[in-house]
């Protein structure tokens, strides 16, 4: 048994290395990865460079609505706040909400999916029917309803968004579990008397890892867009926080006289999501070379 485990570890380690080797051969994925790492560093550093109260939200009406210049690279908004500073500082909201909602959704979804797939029968039916209902309603609509029920706050936004993430993880996990459940090595583990949760954790979860890793990357992107959409509708991250969607909502009021306010936050969102999609596509190809063909 111990020897078998050793072999498994060797194999999985070399698989991770193999995946990495294929990933860094993919130009798009490397660009995406570098962009994302830079963004993480920027969002951490911006907390040291700027002071939230004085640089990010303080009013400065004297300098309101200035077009991009050497002093204000991205211009200033209607309250005279420097848009460059707000964009950099705002990266943390998108990243935290995206990663947070997906992480919570991942835990909930994989648990539910593993339970549904492993036990089957009535449990499966109930879980999957509920998931189907949520899956068929557009996620923006679900999020709008949940936020409106719970009230507008960053935490509630997170809850609303993790719902839709959970449904897609439930489906992936269930499908993977169902195919793996009846394989001989799982049956063998059963006969050895391993408790069910241990089998799920040790044998089943590692085997549905690749579709989940890919889905995590892509869903963070979708979630960032959804979060900014809700903020744009005025029910996401509350003002005056420099969330990119909220900045677009303010920008929309000045679309005629200061259109850069509409352009810049959107580009920030797009590049972030683009980087995530590039990385996700790259990961999918690297994890499953057959898919590329």
């Amino acid at each position, binding site marked *: 048994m111990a020897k078998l485990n050793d072999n498994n570890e060797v194999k999985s380690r070399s698989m991770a290395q193999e995946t990495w080797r294929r990933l860094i051969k993919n130009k798009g994925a490397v660009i995406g990865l570098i962009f994302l790492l830079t963004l993480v560093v920027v969002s951490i550093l911006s907390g040291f460079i700027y002071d939230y109260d004085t640089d990010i939200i303080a009013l400065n009406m004297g300098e309101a609505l200035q077009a991009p210049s050497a002093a204000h690279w991205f211009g200033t908004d209607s309250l005279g706040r420097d848009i460059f500073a707000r964009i950099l500082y705002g990266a943390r909201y998108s990243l935290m909400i995206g990663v947070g909602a997906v992480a919570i959704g991942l835990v909930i979804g994989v648990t539910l999916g593993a339970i549904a797939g492993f036990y089957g029968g009535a449990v499966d039916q109930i879980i999957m029917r509920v998931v189907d209902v949520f899956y068929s309603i557009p996620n923006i609509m679900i999020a709008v309803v949940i936020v409106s029920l*719970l009230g507008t706050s960053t935490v509630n936004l997170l809850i609303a968004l993790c719902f839709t993430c959970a449904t897609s993880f439930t489906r992936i996990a269930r499908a993977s579990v169902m195919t793996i459940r009846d394989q001989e090595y799982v049956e063998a583990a059963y006969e050895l008397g391993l408790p069910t949760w241990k089998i799920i954790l040790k044998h089943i979860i590692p085997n549905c890892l690749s579709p989940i890793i890919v889905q995590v990357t892509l869903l963070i992107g979708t979630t960032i867009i959804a979060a900014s959409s809700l903020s744009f509708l005025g029910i996401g991250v509350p003002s005056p926080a420099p969330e990119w969607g909220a900045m677009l909502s303010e920008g929309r009021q000045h679309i005629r006289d200061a259109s850069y306010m509409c352009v810049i936050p959107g580009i920030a969102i797009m590049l972030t999501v683009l980087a995530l999609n590039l990385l996700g596509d790259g990961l999918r190809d690297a994890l499953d070379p057959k898919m590329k063909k």
Partner: protein
Amino acid sequence: MIRYIIKRIILMVPAIIATSFIIYFAMNMTGGDPALTLAPENATEQQIEEIREELGLNDPIYVRYGKYMLGMLKGDLGTSYVTKRDVFKTFMERLPNTIELAFTAVLIATLIAVPLGIYTAIHQNTWKDTGGMVFALFGVSMPNFWLGLMLIIIFSLNLKWLPSGGKEGIRSLILPALTVGMGFAALITRTTRSAMLDVIRQDYMTTARAKGASEKTVIFQHGLKNALIPIITVIGMQLSNALTGSVLAETVFSWPGVGRLIVDSISKRDTPMVTGAIIMSCVLMCVVNLVIDLIYAFFDPRIKAQYSRKG
């Protein structure tokens, strides 16, 4: 086949009941006391109680839900707290606008995306493929409402070709439809490409070529026809999403559709309107999904045979 359709319609009933149950309870348990919202600023306890009585809010919630469902059978979804108008009627007034936008957007998306998807698949791993995929990648990475704002800046503020919002005639439809359509186009392109790539490697494609069929016939007659199922699925999903209202595009372009009705009603705490509109959207979605499933049977004889057996 007909028996299959009837069976599917009957199966829709529990789905609609379950959805309406969840939505009704969620909206009415957490929405706060509507009587307080509706009453004038300086209303007395007496007046508030009268409003409660009038709205039937003093009944237990399951009684109210029962009454609501009975009303639904007659097309009565209650009356808006805010406008005092019939919910069903208001929804039906907004629906044609949403349908117009949804169908135009999906049409634009399909016309762009399906040919592009086929083109990129045929030229896999060349610069043509890369170009098409970069377009699609930008499409899925772009927040839809932002694309709307950009289109307004370019086409209505700078070029002054098209109106920036509202709904007057066909010209006001173009920008919102493009906005919604571009997001869809990206997804449909990706799906078409991967479905075609799957099909292109099939043996029957070689059979067709060996018969002496031209490359065009092989790709369209034999290839596309087999790749249609996933393509129809994704187009159908986009359509049913668009029919529940493209909230963001409708907001950006002040388009009087169902999505905006729901969002506006939520912000005004108009519980009957929100509940009714969401339930109606779900019914609509069930119908669209059924139609799509039936379209499958039209294109794939294997699925048709499956339906007949189940029928």
